[in-house]
């Protein structure tokens, strides 16, 4: 039996097509995945992401613990409320999960990580935390709603108490703040997301989630499913755990080198393996691909390069661009002309820089 978020019945009543996503019964779309994609790029859409894992960390040595646990440097977090994207690695440098960590106080940090990795994340975090006396508290009673798109700010402002509006209006990117809803309920409002648009993610007690969702809907915010979330994030050049990287892949092979903090003397888990890989030469790299011909790039297709074969990781039709795009992992070295094996036919593709789409507009 798959798990359900508190909004499950609401999605079904709205005519959502439900699918299993990492053990959760979630809406893939509410009619048209492509329309929902455009809705977010052009206006605003809301996503139920309550399946994601919220973990609170308490204790005097929490920062010290995160210096050990995370590949990115938690010392970049200096201002309360600030968030950081990071990978959590095993000793071999493979990615256990990617996550966002929020600095809420020297003795209080919050992690939001993926849904399908919940059990192994919790086990790993608790194991490492034991050495630091950090208390690890999962928060399954919290719901998470993301509002994304150029008009997300106005949509969110209408749902917070008058006294908190100035603070939300001034909220910087990748920063979170506590606020109150219009009914006085406690909201944790973060200016984060997974679409490449401006947007907010609100964490709140699940007993208030249906009311907030309905208020947003009444205000004209349309729901969007996980299908649109996937095409939006790929256009925005964001990795998906399990598809673009996993425990057999180092962040250096997943175009996530920018998220590793090699600060002097910080002994994070996986550091030695990453340094050894850098010294020996990273054998594979992740690139963006664009298909100029007709056809759709899909996960698992073979990528032919002068340096050897690679494979498509995330691949899809990009609604904003009207063509297919993908992430591919290919051998290091000069790739030359690149082709993708689509049902036995080698179709030419072009390596392109990504994000493919920024602020609603194609980058190329």
């Amino acid at each position, binding site marked *: 039996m798959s798990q359900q978020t508190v909004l499950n019945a609401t999605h079904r009543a709205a005519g959502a097509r439900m699918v299993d996503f990492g053990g959760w019964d979630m809406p893939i779309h509410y009619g048209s995945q492509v329309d929902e994609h455009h809705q977010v790029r052009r206006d605003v859409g809301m996503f139920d992401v309550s399946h994601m894992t919220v973990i609170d960390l308490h204790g005097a040595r929490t920062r010290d613990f995160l210096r050990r646990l995370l590949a990115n440097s938690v010392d970049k977090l200096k201002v309360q409320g600030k968030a950081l994207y990071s990978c959590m690695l095993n000793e071999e440098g493979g990615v256990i999960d990617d996550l966002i960590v929020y600095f809420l106080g020297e003795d209080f940090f919050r992690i939001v990580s993926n849904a399908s990795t919940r059990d192994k994340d919790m086990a790993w975090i608790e194991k490492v935390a034991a050495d630091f006396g950090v208390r690890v508290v999962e928060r399954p009673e919290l719901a998470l709603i993301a509002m994304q798109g150029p008009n997300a700010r106005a949509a969110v402002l209408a749902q917070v108490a008058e006294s908190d509006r100035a603070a939300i209006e001034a909220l910087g990117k990748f920063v979170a703040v506590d606020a109150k809803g219009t009914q006085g309920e406690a909201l944790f409002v973060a200016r984060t997301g997974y679409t490449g648009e401006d947007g907010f993610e609100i964490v709140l007690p699940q007993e208030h989630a249906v009311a907030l969702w309905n208020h947003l809907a009444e205000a004209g915010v349309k729901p969007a499913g996980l299908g649109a979330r996937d095409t939006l994030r790929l256009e925005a050049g964001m990795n998906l755990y399990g598809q673009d990287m996993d425990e057999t892949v180092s962040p250096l092979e997943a175009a996530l080198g920018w998220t590793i903090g090699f600060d002097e003397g910080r002994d994070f888990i996986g550091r030695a393996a990453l340094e050894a890989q850098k010294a020996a030469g990273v054998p594979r790299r992740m690139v963006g691909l664009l298909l100029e011909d007709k056809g759709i790039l899909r996960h698992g297709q073979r990528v032919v390069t002068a340096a050897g074969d690679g494979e498509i990781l995330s691949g*899809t039709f990009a609604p904003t661009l009207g063509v297919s795009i993908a992430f591919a992992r290919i051998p290091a070295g000069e790739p030359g002309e690149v082709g993708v094996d689509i049902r036995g036919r080698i179709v030419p593709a072009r390596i392109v820089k990504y994000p493919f789409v920024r602020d609603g507009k194609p980058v190329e």
Partner: protein
Amino acid sequence: MSEIPGDLKFQRSHEWARLEEGGRVTVGISFHAQDQLGDVVYVELPTVGDHFEQGAGCAVVESVKAASDIYAPVSGTVIAINEALADAPETINADPWGEGWLFALKIDDAAQLDGLLGPDDYAQAVEEDAH
């Protein structure tokens, strides 16, 4: 569920076939099939003159979500393809029984149609799939 036109025959794999004049059989996918696929964004069609045996893969319909093989409902030679789909593949979602047709075959043996499902049997098969 959209009403199924009474003159269609179906394969279990959701292709429909309509016998027209001169042994021409037009082929498309059902309302149920396009609904399952979601937004269709690309269609790969056969070439006029290609010959297919019944059940052979002869086209691909791709939605944002997935690629779906289309199998020839009867044996025959391709005599027409729906070229409008190249620029407007979403027509398959909007009108699967009509403007969203895929291709037409000249049927080898009209008796083969008798082996396909009628509208009621197909509707029942879809119903069973849902349970």
